[in-house]
Structure formats: structure tokens, C-alpha cells
């Protein structure tokens, strides 16, 4: 760490923001700070992402990548029609992605609506990570997901319920309306408040993923500013999308967010996670993300505490690719399980 990083590391989130912003997290201070960050040229960003997408990942590297992808998945079900049965089935899949191969790694987490957290916790049983380094986490979307259109009190209650029910991770949405109308202070305060609501009785915190809903922020500059804002406010992860609107995660958007966490580490020495979610369905696409992570922030980020895929159908495509690598012939959908 550099000396300035060391100085930063000794500050808590609020103090750090105060130091960086040169004052309280007001709309004006945040605006000045966020608009002082270098802009993004969309064409160049997309070209770089496309270029990273041409990496050819074969044989042993591919095998490693496929297993790595599985271990980074937040296996997700976020439907209005979700039931305890559906969630138990999802957990079953999370625990045993490929019944034919006991060596197949497990996913990082299951991601469900807050009211289904108890079901997921129960279904995981002893495999629930619950703060340990092994096992599967339960992530809950919260804060009036996906729109975020509710009072702060409702959002905080939403978070509190999920944490109390045993959620290890909270996937919150930012108030895009507030962000787009320049009320950066409100977005900031809300993230701070949600983070506080993640505090458990024992004083520990559920991990906070901040969903930017990049499709609604629209521009790369907005994505970059929202990323900084979320990190300044104490988010542990920045996440692209709810998956409820298109476009969800794209490689250029994810690249731009990875560049922010890279710069944040340069500035403070601290590591923040990134989670692209929605729209990543094939191994081929997922490998492009793995490549982009490795070449932008380094391989150290390819760990569940720093990178996740928010996905559902991706897992089975990866499993089929995995089977192909083992058997030497192409697999089919009947040879992987549905959840």
C-alpha cells in the first residue's frame, strides 16, 4: 500500500467520503466530485470490451474457467410466481449442480426475494454459509426491488426482515430517479442507511450489493458516477442490473465498473466486488467476463467475495460445456437438471 492508501485504510466509510469529497455528502459536493471523474468515450470502451471478447480460452484454461464460473454464480430466481417449492428446487440445484459429477463445484449463493429467505436458509441447512467461508450464501433482493419506488422506511424494513431471516447478502437497488435528477445526496444517504440496516444483532453486517440498474442510467458516464457513489457510500459490491429490464449486464458496462473498482483500489487500497446480472446465458459470454476481470483488475478478483454472476440459465450451459470437456462429445439439455 502507498502511504495515501494507508491513510485511507484507517478511515471508516463516512470519514473516507468526507475526506474525498472535501465536505459532507451533499448534492453539490457529490456532483462536483462525480463530475470531476474522467469521462468515458463509449466507442473506445466498447472496442476494448469487444477486443477482450476475442481472447481464445481453450483446453486447461477453459476447464479452469468453467469451474470458476460455477463458483461465482448467484443462482437466482426472482419471479412473482416463486414458491417455497421453487426455492427448494433452486437450492437443490445450487448444492448439486451436476448429479453425475461430484467434483463439480457449488455456486456461490442463491438469490431470492426477501420473503423466501427463510425457505432458502432452511433448505440449505448445514450447507448455509452463514458467515463462514465455506457453504452457500443466501442473497436477498431488497429495497422495493426492482423499481425501488417505496419510502425509505419500507425499504429499510425490507432489508431488516431479510437480514433477520438469515440473508448473508443484500442486493439493494438505488433510486434511479433521484440519481437522474441529480439528488446524489439522497442516493448516498439511502445506501448508507441500507448498509446500517444490514447490521446483524451480533454487530456483523450482511454484505451489501448495490444494484445500479445500468439500463436505466443509460450512459456509461452515469454508470461510472453511480459506481463511485455506491462505493463512497459503503457498498461492498456494485451490481449492474435487476435483470428485470433490458439491457441488463453488458460487457462494456461491466468493464467500466471494473475500471472503477480498480481505481478505487489504487486510491484507497480497498477491494470492492462487481456483479454483472441478467442476460449472461452462455459459457462463451461468461468466459468473456472472466477474461475482462482478469485483464482489468487481475485474477485476484476471480473469487466469490469480489466477483459474481447474477444468473439462472447460465449454470446449465456451463455444465453442458463441462460435460463436453470431460466426455469429448456435445451434451444436451436432458443431461443437465432443471431447477
Amino acid at each position, binding site marked *: 500500500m502507498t502511504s495515501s492508501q494507508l491513510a485511507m485504510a484507517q478511515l471508516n466509510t463516512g470519514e473516507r467520503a468526507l475526506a474525498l469529497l472535501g465536505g459532507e455528502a451533499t448534492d453539490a459536493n457529490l456532483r462536483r466530485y462525480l463530475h470531476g471523474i474522467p*469521462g468515458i468515450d463509449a466507442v*473506445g470502451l466498447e472496442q*476494448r470490451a469487444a477486443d477482450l471478447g476475442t481472447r*481464445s*480460452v*481453450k483446453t486447461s484454461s477453459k476447464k479452469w474457467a468453467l469451474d470458476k464460473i460455477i463458483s461465482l454464480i448467484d443462482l437466482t430466481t426472482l419471479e412473482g410466481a416463486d414458491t417455497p417449492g421453487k426455492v427448494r428446487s433452486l437450492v437443490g440445484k445450487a448444492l448439486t449442480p451436476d448429479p453425475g459429477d461430484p467434483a463439480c463445484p457449488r455456486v456461490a449463493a442463491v438469490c431470492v426475494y426477501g420473503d423466501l429467505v427463510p425457505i432458502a436458509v432452511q433448505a440449505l441447512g448445514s450447507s448455509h454459509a452463514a458467515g463462514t467461508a465455506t457453504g452457500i450464501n443466501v442473497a436477498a433482493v431488497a429495497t422495493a426491488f426492482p423499481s425501488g419506488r417505496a419510502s425509505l422506511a419500507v425499504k429499510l424494513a425490507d432489508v431488516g426482515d431479510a437480514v433477520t431471516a438469515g440473508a448473508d447478502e443484500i442486493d439493494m437497488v438505488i433510486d434511479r430517479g433521484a440519481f437522474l435528477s441529480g439528488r446524489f445526496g439522497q442516493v448516498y444517504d439511502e445506501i448508507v442507511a441500507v448498509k446500517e440496516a444490514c447490521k446483524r444483532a451480533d454487530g456483523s453486517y450482511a454484505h451489501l450489493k448495490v444494484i445500479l440498474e445500468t439500463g436505466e442510467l443509460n450512459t456509461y458516464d452515469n454508470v461510472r458516477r453511480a459506481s463511485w457513489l455506491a462505493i463512497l457510500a459503503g457498498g461492498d459490491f456494485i451490481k449492474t442490473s435487476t435483470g428485470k429490464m433490458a439491457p441488463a449486464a453488458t460487457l462494456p458496462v461491466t468493464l467500466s465498473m471494473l475500471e472503477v473498482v480498480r481505481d478505487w483500489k489504487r486510491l484507497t487500497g480497498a477491494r470492492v466486488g462487481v456483479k454483472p446480472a441478467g442476460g449472461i446465458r452462455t459459457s462463451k459470454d461468461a468466459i468473456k467476463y472472466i477474461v475482462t476481470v482478469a485483464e482489468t483488475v487481475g485474477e485476484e478478483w476471480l473469487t466469490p467475495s469480489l466477483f459474481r454472476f447474477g444468473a439462472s440459465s447460465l449454470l446449465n450451459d456451463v455444465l453442458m460445456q463441462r460435460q463436453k470437456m470431460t466426455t469429448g462429445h456435445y451434451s444436451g439439455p436432458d443431461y443437465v437438471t432443471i431447477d
Partner: protein
Amino acid sequence: MSFLDYAPAPESQAVLNLRSDYGLFINGEFVAGRGVPFQTINPATEKPIAMIAHANTADVDTAVAAARRAYDRTWSKLSGSDRGKYLFRIARLVQERARELAVAETLDNGKPIKESRDVDVPLVAAWFFYYAGWADKLDHAGVGPTPSSRGVAAQVIPWNFPLLMLAWKIAPALAAGNTVVLKPAETTSLTALLFAEILQQADLPAGVVNIVTGGRETGQALVGHPDVNLVAFTGSTGAGRAIARSVAGTDKKVILELGGKAANIVFDDAPIDQAVEGIVNGIFFNQGHVCCAGSRLLVQESIHDDVIDRLKQRLSTLRLGDPLDKNTDIGAINSADQLRRIRELTEIGEQEGGERWSPACVLPDSGFWFAPTIFTNVSTSHRIARDEVFGPVLSVLTFRTPAEAIAKANNTPYGLSAGIWTEKGSRILAVADKLRAGVIWANTFNRFDPASPFGGYKESGYGREGGRHGLAAYLKPAAGRSAARTVTTAPAESSPELDAKAPVSRKKAAK
């Protein structure tokens, strides 16, 4: 394991069906050369690829005679639309054989397969496709109605983009109705000869394109041949100067694309991550063997340290090695000669006080390799800030104000290209106005397109390749029109007419 090592992903050479030796391509056929054949080698391994014929003066005579005959008897009599159809055919054949051409190019030149596959060969096809459509629209080329072709074009191309430079030369020449004798660079003849096979498949009339391989003296014989009407050359400024001298006093039309020492100017409000990519692409694309390479980074002093820091981090992810590996970013230096020159200039750079840095990078044991290198603490008087290195070597200089950036950027005898990085639109346009260079890339670098004219100011040469301008060079205004000193009525059409005549009034103005 480290994921970033990536397992080897070599492009298969099985698509290639190379002969052990290649003749000259004259009058539609491969014929033996009368000089001593030479070997073309893979610069990444120094292993031989094939024997290449060497054209002596007599061979050049034969080739020019074949081109003249084809011009007189066939090509100049063909309709524009038929000429266009041949070019369309060629474009399609290039697309069909793209993989093969890319592999051959990488093998012979040393450039990464991802560049030959994604840049060189697709642009070759695009170039033929673009000029194919011009062949029957020459009235709109900008030299007035019913222009004529010039005759036999002598074309000499360099080794950095062998097939692409061939396309830049041949496509507009044929579209305009000229015939061609082309000489590839000595170290990179292979794809030109594969291209000759494509011409046979396209059934292009014999003699319309002739390819003579050989060394410098072959090129001199071609350029100096009394029966060529046009000389198009891409290469070093030194060689271009010699050509400009040798054609003095003749009516040969000359197009010269020569060296460069482009400034890549990064302002403090630049989109920083894209600028870093642009710096990397500007100087490390094609191992820096690019005449328009952004070899001088002019970075605003206030962000110098940050930019260099980011640049170093980015360079550490560049992958140098087997050019045929699909993940290779930096391939081999094209020849031992070039490697020697790069080493010599970088050693001078150190002696002059430049601070040299390269990422940790293992160079293969055989072949010609040079690690990506940046020099900081470079001043305008250093040779590495003035001489074209033509290799993966970046010189970093600083500036304080836009005026200083412009002054430093223009402080060179060259004037081929430049880059500008800033989010401020009005500044981009104002700086672009003031830069004395033929191609300006704003918030991007090293982009090429057949529709976009390319060429230099000052000692970077004259004439343009690409676009309407690139076509016009191969055309002559209709005969007789320049003699008009009488009132002429302008044609109704609105196409640009470079020979528009002044109405000459002899009537007395009212007193």
C-alpha cells in the same frame, strides 16, 4: 495455474497450401525470375517458408511490357462496370480465402494473427469492394467529366501491412482503368503471390496486374522504368525522397506515403481509460511497424504520472509471443535489420537520458523480438522524439497548454497523423485545425477505412490513398480541357470538378 497465462490457442496452418517456391506473376502466369531466388522466412522462428523469385531489370521490363499490352488491348477498352465486376470478384475471393490469407500474412510478417484476421484481411476485402463501385462512376471522382486513366502504374509497397498495402494500391488503380506492376517488400512477398492466385481465380485478364518480387534494385528498376505513367510508393521517407528525385523531369504522377512521428496528445480532461487504450493501440499495434503510429505521447503535465502509471499497468497485460496464437498482442519484429535499428535507437534513447521501461516479458529464443518499451523524461531534442523508430517504442513528452501541445506536435519534418484526447469538443476541432498532419484521430487512433483518405503533409509524402481522393490520383482530367481560355458553360451536374474554368471576360468593365 494462472488463468491469465491462457493455454496456447494457435491458429491452424492446415488452411495453407504453400508451394516451396514462387515465381514472378507476369501476364497472368507464374514465371521464373532471372535474378537469384531468395528465401522468405518466418520472423518469429527464423524458419524458411518458401523460395521467392528475384526479378532483375529484364524481368521488370517484361512485366511493364505485359502491363502496357494489357492496358492498350484490354483493360482501357473495358467498360467501367466490367472493371468493377472484376474488383467485386476479387473482394469476394479475398473474403472466401480470408483465413488462409491471414495465416500466411502472420507467418511471413510476424504480426499477431488477431490483427491479420481482424484488421488486415477484412480491410483488404473492404478496399476492393469500395473501389469496385467507383469503376463506373469516374465522372464523379473529382477531376471533371470523362477523366481518363493514366496507363501503367508502378507500385512499391512496404512490409508492415503487405496485403493491405497491396489492396490500397491495386484497387484504386484498377478501378480507374490503369494496369499495374507491383513490387512487394523483400521480406513479405508471400501474400502478394497468394493474391496472384486469387487474380487467376477471378479470371482477371492477363497482364492487368503483374507482381515482381525482389529487392531494392527491383523496385528502383520498376520506378525508374520509362514506360510507367504513375509511381505509387509507401515506405521510408529516405526511399521516397530518392523516388521524388528519380522522377524529376518526367511526367510520371507520384504518390508517396512515407514516414511519420505522430503526436498522440492527451489533455487532462481526456476519457482516461480509452486514452490509455488509444496510446497502446497507437504505438503497439503491429509492433509499432506503422508509419502513422502514435510514437510521441504528448501528455499534459498535470496528469503525466497518473497516465504513465495506468499505461504501465496496461502494458503488463500485453502478451508477446507466437504470432499465430490467437491471444498474442505483440508479435515478432519483421526482420533482423529492423530489430537492429530499433535496438540502436533505443540505446541512443537511454544515452540521451530517456528513462526506459518495459514490462516483465520473456522473449522467445529464436526469431526477432522486442519488448514493448516506453521512454519517459524525453525532450523534443532527443533522437527518439524525432526519428521514426518503426517499432514498439513510445517516447513520452509533456506539455502545459494547448498551444504548447500544438507547437510540439508540429515540431517535426513529418506530418502524417496525430491523435487528440479530450472530452471538450471545441478544443478537439480547434487543435485538429492547427495540427499539420493528414490524418487526425480524435478520441481514437489507428483507424482505417477505404472511404477515408490517408496521407501526409510535409516529409510524410504527398497524395492521398483511400476515398475519392485516393481514386483521383489514378485519373487524369479529360484531355484538352486545360487549354480552355474561353467561356465554358459548367455542366449541369454538381460533381466536383477540379478543372472548372474561369469565365474569361474580355469585355471592358464599365468605366
